[in-house]
């Protein structure tokens, strides 16, 4: 019996080690392969800095847009039941499963001049294709579902009873939302913002279709790889990965402290 138990553990242990190696080895190898001097060079490279800055700016804007229009919608989804709610929740998840280049093509489909929206934007002087506006549009499209789902879960985890109590004590629905619900959902909102930024910053397939220029970091990495090969793309990749890892660790810290509190 003891042997059986060991086999069972052994199998899961071996598979665990395999998976760890599979994920970590390429990342570690990539990070350690470029020489320090090539990394220094990359940091000094204005094109690299510009691309990473644009990535951060556009992702941040996507998160901001998600925050402003996503938060009230998430609250509605968490608190109210209505016909078609499941359909709407499915629609919100759609951008997650659509192949990335298809996202880009879909967005271009509505901003072309042969469509009313595209014509309207053209008359307003707003350019989508090949512009920062286009990049932000794409990143909001792929990032927002993560924000809405995280915040919706946050609202759901707040007992409606707590809001009920606030109402019976004299607070209106709006007062209750700002005094009780929002402070309690703050952590899930932070998690949502970071997940949205992390998803947006890593997008490549959709961006490359809507705006090859101005170049966000993933596009720059691709271009360098295509033009100069693996070795020249690695330093930029390392810089971008560091930005992502920082976001990732902040996310982990926030969501872990949150879980601990729930215990």
């Amino acid at each position, binding site marked *: 019996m003891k042997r059986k138990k060991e086999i069972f553990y052994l199998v899961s242990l071996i598979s665990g080690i395999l998976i760890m190696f599979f994920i970590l080895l390429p990342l570690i190898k990539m990070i350690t392969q470029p020489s320090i001097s090539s990394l220094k060079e990359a940091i000094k490279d204005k094109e690299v800095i510009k691309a990473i800055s644009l990535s951060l700016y556009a992702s941040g804007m996507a998160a901001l847009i998600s925050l402003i229009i996503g938060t009230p919608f998430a609250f509605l989804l968490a608190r109210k039941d209505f016909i078609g709610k499941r359909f709407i929740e499915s629609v919100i998840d759609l951008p997650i499963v659509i192949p990335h280049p298809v996202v880009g093509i879909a967005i271009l489909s509505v901003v072309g001049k042969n469509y009313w929206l595209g014509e309207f934007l053209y008359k307003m002087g707003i350019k989508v294709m090949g512009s920062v506006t286009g990049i932000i549009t794409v990143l909001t499209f792929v990032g927002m579902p993560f924000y809405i789902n995280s915040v919706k879960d946050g609202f759901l985890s707040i007992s409606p009873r707590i809001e009920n109590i606030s109402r*019976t004590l*004299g*607070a209106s629905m709006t007062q209750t939302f700002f005094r009780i619900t929002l402070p309690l959902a703050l952590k899930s909102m932070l998690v949502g913002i970071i997940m949205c930024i992390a998803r947006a910053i890593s997008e490549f397939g959709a961006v490359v279709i809507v705006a090859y220029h101005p170049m966000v970091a993933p596009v720059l990495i691709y271009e360098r790889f295509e033009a100069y090969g693996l070795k020249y793309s690695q330093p930029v990749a390392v810089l971008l990965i560091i930005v992502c890892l920082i976001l990732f660790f902040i996310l982990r810290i926030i969501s872990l402290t949150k879980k601990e*509190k729930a215990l």
Partner: protein
Amino acid sequence: MIRIKDLSIQLAGFSLDDINLNILDGEFFALMGPTGAGKTLLLEAIAGLIKPRRGKIEIDGKDVTYLPPEKRKIGIVYQDYALFPHLTVLENIRYGLHFHKIKKDEEKKRLNYLADQLKIRPILERYPENLSGGEKQRVALARALIINPKLLLLDEPLSALDPVFREEMKKELKEVHKSHKITFLMVSHDFSDVLSLAGKGAIMNQGRIEQIGDISEIFQKPISHFVADFVGMKNLFKVSFKETKAIINDAIEVETGKTLKNSYGYLAIRPEDIVISKEKLTSSMRNNFKGVVKNILNHGFYHELHIEVEKIIFKALVTKNSIIELRLEKGTTVYLSFKAASIHIL
């Protein structure tokens, strides 16, 4: 006075039907019933948290049916307390004051009074997560009481407490009710809590009120099979009636003391209303039967006797002392007696 008229609520998979309820000022009213009877739903409807489909709720003669909860001045204390986790105990209690125009002096007075009465002064700076169940309970009470509600709704206030704190909290609830002169409406499914706290009450089942009245009346004169069963009316027999007599199983004739019109019905007797003796009693009790003890169940403070009379089992509660004094054991022949007044015809 709280007056609920023909209140109906329709929720997904659940409904309340034609609830009628009057609660006098200052009353301690208990709402009993099995899980899923709709007790909490009714509380939330009274507080304005759930919109009724039909019916009317009046407080002191004023129709509040479509008033939002923040305008009703009805407090609520949930079973799980529902304290605001991001606020300290003090902030929790003060919360309601923001929304009511109360003078600073008056605020302080109420706060001090509640802090002392409910013994929460030492924990005012703590956060809810660091409180024990009893402390949370007290804070939830203080938070609801500080705005002087006209009605306080209590949703199974004692069920989440350890038995040791339960007795203490029960006493405290009673004191709070007395000193604040607020109408209390408590949901509970613990009979001993209800018996020691409430004056009037109602029994709910499947979204309807089955019986309403004095607690003692509900326990002693259940008007339906369901209520009788729910309140532990353990002797319940199908009978045929003949003049003033109810006949069980064509064998036992029970004197009811009143002429009955129906020909069939149910007869109920509470087990504690049956008196057990070794010799036939000569007393004012009109019903005397000879039987044999079939079983003795030890319930701790009291024992339950199963006594067979003409193949019918009667259940009676006696103290441990009686068991010893009367030397009762399985097979002992005993007499059981009960007053006509102890009989309930359903």
